[in-house]
C-alpha cells in the first residue's frame, strides 16, 4: 500500500528534504494521514467519535494491561489480564493509608459504578492495586474497599510483583524505605486508567479525579463501543 505513490520515493532523498523541510513536513504529514485513513477509514473515525464523547483523556500511545497475578481481598489469586479481557477496566494504584487522593478517587469509582445499570456494570471491572502490600493485607484492603464498594477488586501481593506491574505501565516508583516504627513515604501513580476490552489503556484521568457522573458516562460509552 505504501509503494508506487508518486513522490513517495522522494522522502528518501534527504538533501532536498532538509532544505525544504517545512513544506515537505506538511506533505509527509498529509500523506501519512491519508495512508492511515486508507488503512482503516471506518475504524479511525469510529474511535475518534467515541474518544470525543469521553471526559477521559485519550492516550495516543495506549498502555498495555500489566502481566501480573496478585491476590484479591478474599485471598484468591487474580490474574489481571485474564480477568480484564473482554471488559472495560478501571484501574487505580494506591494504598489504604493514603490520606485523601486514594479514598477520594476510589469513592468516585464506587459512586460511578452505582450509577450504571446492571448490564453495563457486568461488563466493567474495577480494580485497585496497593503499592504498599506489606501493610495492605487482603483483610485491610477488604475493610477499606468495603466502606466504598465491595464489588471493586482490591489486589495485593509481593512488593516485587506490584512494582513490576507499575513499571509495566511506565512508572518508576521510589523504593519504599520502612523504618521499624513510624511514618514512611508511599508514592503511587496519580492517574486512574481506563482499559478497553482488548486490554489497551487507551484512556485515563491524569489526576484520578473524574466526577462519578462523568466516569459513569465514559464507562457507558466504552461498554457500548464495539472494540
Amino acid at each position, binding site marked *: 500500500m505504501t509503494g508506487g505513490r508518486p513522490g513517495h520515493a522522494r522522502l528518501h532523498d534527504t538533501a532536498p528534504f532538509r532544505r525544504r523541510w517545512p513544506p515537505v513536513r506538511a506533505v509527509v504529514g498529509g500523506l501519512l494521514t491519508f495512508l492511515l485513513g486508507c488503512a482503516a477509514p471506518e475504524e479511525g473515525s469510529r474511535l475518534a467519535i467515541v474518544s470525543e464523547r469521553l471526559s477521559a483523556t485519550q492516550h495516543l500511545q495506549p498502555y498495555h494491561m500489566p502481566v501480573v497475578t496478585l491476590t484479591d481481598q478474599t485471598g484468591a489469586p487474580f490474574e489481571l489480564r485474564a480477568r480484564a479481557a473482554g471488559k472495560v477496566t478501571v484501574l487505580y494504584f494506591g494504598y*489504604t*493509608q*493514603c*490520606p*485523601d*487522593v486514594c*479514598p*477520594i478517587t*476510589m*469513592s*468516585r469509582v*464506587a*459512586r460511578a459504578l452505582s450509577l450504571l445499570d446492571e448490564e453495563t456494570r457486568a461488563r466493567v471491572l474495577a480494580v485497585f492495586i496497593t503499592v504498599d502490600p506489606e501493610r495492605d493485607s487482603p483483610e485491610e484492603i477488604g*475493610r*477499606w474497599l*468495603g*466502606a*466504598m464498594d465491595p464489588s471493586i477488586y482490591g489486589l495485593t501481593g509481593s512488593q516485587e510483583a506490584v512494582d513490576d506491574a507499575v513499571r509495566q505501565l511506565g*512508572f518508576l*516508583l*521510589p523504593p519504599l524505605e520502612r523504618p521499624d516504627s513510624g*511514618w514512611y*513515604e*508511599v*508514592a*503511587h*501513580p*496519580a*492517574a486512574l486508567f481506563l482499559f478497553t476490552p482488548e486490554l489497551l489503556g487507551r484512556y485515563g484521568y*491524569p*489526576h*484520578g*479525579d473524574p466526577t*462519578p457522573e462523568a466516569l459513569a458516562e465514559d464507562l457507558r460509552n466504552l461498554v457500548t463501543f464495539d472494540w
Partner: protein
Amino acid sequence: MSGSGRRRRSGTIRAGRSRATVALAVLTGLMACLDARESRSVDASGDREGEGSAVSVEGAFALDPLGGDRIAIYANLVNAGSSSDTLVSITTDVGGSSSLHEMALEEGIMRMRPIPAIAIPAGSSVLLEPGGLHGMLEGLERIPAAGQKIRVTFYFSGTAPIEAVLPVRHPGDVQGGHAHP
C-alpha cells in the same frame, strides 16, 4: 504530639485577640514584616513572630478514615494580620498523633512528604485540601465516621490555639480536591 491536655477552651473558631495585641502588632509591624520574609520557608521554631497575626480557620473538615486509624484534616487558614504565622500541630478529641504533610505530583507520581509546619504569610490564606497540604492524626483512639463531628484544635506559633468542631465527610462527598499543579 498527642497531648490532648494542651487543648485550650477558646469557645470560638476565631482566635481571641485583644486590643492590646493589635496595638502591639502595629508597634512591631515593621519587624514582623521582616520576619515574615524569612518565615515563608517552613519553620516550626518561630515563636516571636505572629504578634500581629490574626489567624482564623474556615471551612474545616475531616475525611472519614473508612475504618482506618488515621484521619486527615483540611481547612482554609486565613491570616488577616500583619505578620506571618505557622500552623505547627493539630490535636483532636479522638486522639492520634499529629503530623503535617504535603502532597506533590511529579511526572505522574503522587508523593506525600512530612513537613514541620505550614507557613501562613501575613494578609493571605493557605488552603489545606485533598491532594495538597493536610494535617494528619495517626493512631486514633476512637475512629469517627462520616456524619459525625470531631473536636479539633489547631496550634500556631504566633496565635492562640483555635478550637473548632469539624464535620467528618465521606471521601465520595468531597468536592474539588486533587490540587492540580
